[in-house]
């Protein structure tokens, strides 16, 4: 008999038969996991197992590779119900769940990403804060899955300050003065990603989503042969319409070549 106990954020719940449900979770010490929940289709259980909630889990199976079932899935932090009426927060919550569900491999622990995910989910009630944090979280997601950007120094001059752009090919930061002749082929790097003192206004957040979106689409999900989950586009569209981010006119993504 295989068994483990862990904390996990619910990512998705789908009905299985009359009374059961299959629950996808992102656990702190075992990464993405899945299991059957007996009675998971009931109204009472479903409210607890909604995406975004943190659960105390006990998973059991005859063999470790079996689907297994959650012998316990008790709520620790119920976040989803708080955001049902808030379209911006709900779109962010859905984006987090679908990005993790589609990108994470099963059974690989990512404790740093788990902690960052909980932090992000906990601030979804504050729209002044979470869009910029969401961009940082996406950078963390890329890093955790081996697609991290190097924003520590300029790839051309070695300077650690004044970084303004990122190469779409290498994912390394550069300074505008060192890469002047290639600027139109580079992705703008918003200051708040390299300095806590920099402003995370709507334009900077827009640049941030454009930067992470490029690497999510071309690198991470490109290698997985999947599209970036649609909820992310809906969230960005909703933020833009709410005036929470903006994209400069003509700011199309650069060609890879």
């Amino acid at each position, binding site marked *: 008999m295989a068994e483990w106990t862990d904390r996990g954020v619910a*990512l*998705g*719940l*789908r009905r299985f038969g*009359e009374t059961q449900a299959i629950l*996808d979770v992102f656990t702190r010490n075992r990464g993405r996991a899945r299991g059957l929940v007996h009675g998971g289709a009931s109204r*009472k259980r*479903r*409210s*607890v197992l*909604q*995406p*975004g*909630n943190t659960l105390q889990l006990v998973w059991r199976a005859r063999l470790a590779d079996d689907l297994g079932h959650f012998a316990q899935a008790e*709520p620790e932090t*119920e976040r*989803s*119900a*708080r955001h*049902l*009426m808030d*379209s911006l927060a*709900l*779109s962010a*919550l*859905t984006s987090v*769940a*679908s990005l993790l*569900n*589609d990108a994470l491999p099963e059974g690989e622990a990512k404790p740093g990403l788990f902690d960052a995910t909980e932090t992000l989910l906990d601030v979804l009630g504050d729209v002044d804060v979470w869009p910029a944090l969401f961009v940082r979280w996406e950078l963390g997601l890329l890093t955790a899955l081996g697609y991290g950007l190097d924003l520590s120094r300029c790839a051309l001059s070695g300077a650690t300050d004044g970084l303004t752009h990122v190469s779409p090919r290498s994912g390394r930061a550069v300074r505008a003065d060192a890469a002047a002749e290639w600027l139109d082929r580079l992705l703008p790097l918003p200051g708040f990603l390299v300095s806590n003192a920099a402003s995370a206004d709507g334009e900077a957040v827009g640049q941030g989503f454009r930067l992470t979106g490029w690497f999510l689409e071309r690198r991470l999900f490109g290698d997985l042969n999947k599209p970036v*989950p*649609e*909820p992310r586009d*809906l969230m960005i569209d*909703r933020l833009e*319409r709410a005036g929470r981010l903006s994209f400069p006119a003509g700011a199309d993504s650069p060609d890879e070549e």
Partner: protein
Amino acid sequence: MTHRSAGPEILRLIDLLAKLPGLGPRSARRAALHLLKRPDQLLTPLAAALADAAEKVVACRECGNFDTVDPCSICTAAGRDDAVICAVEQVGDLWAMERSGVFRGRYHVLGGVLSALDGVGPDDLNLSGLIARALRPEVREVILALNATVEGQTTVHYIADRLAGVDVVVTRLAHGVPVGGELDHLDDGTIAAAMASRR
């Protein structure tokens, strides 16, 4: 009775009954036996009713409800309020609303909710029909009566966005303490939703 002791017609009946909600192989065998013992009172009338339904029941082209006429009897009923459309996820939800007897407008069945997990996007739902109906001059309100789940409410926000440019009031069902519910036994999420929707 085991499968081996029955003829192919009975086995087929059991197999088909076992596919119905709430029935497994064991209960399907019991139901089949019950039908076979009462051919005149149950089996033959049920077969006729099923054949009749298969022949005559269609999805309403206006709202998506099941009926033997198209448009359905709710869409054509006189005395219902054309100014209010109640959008629901499934036909079962429409029936639940009708059982309550509190709504006298028209319905629209979406056929599901947005779900990234199940790959259900806006194009998979009957949204264009709802928007086309909302554009009619007599329509003043669209009620989004979807489940209080992340997927249900994500769909509510999406539809509200799509209807933003249409001259209708978009409302949704309240969330909170159910009738007969005791606070002590409610989950944190329901209490939080009830507090947020207090008046």
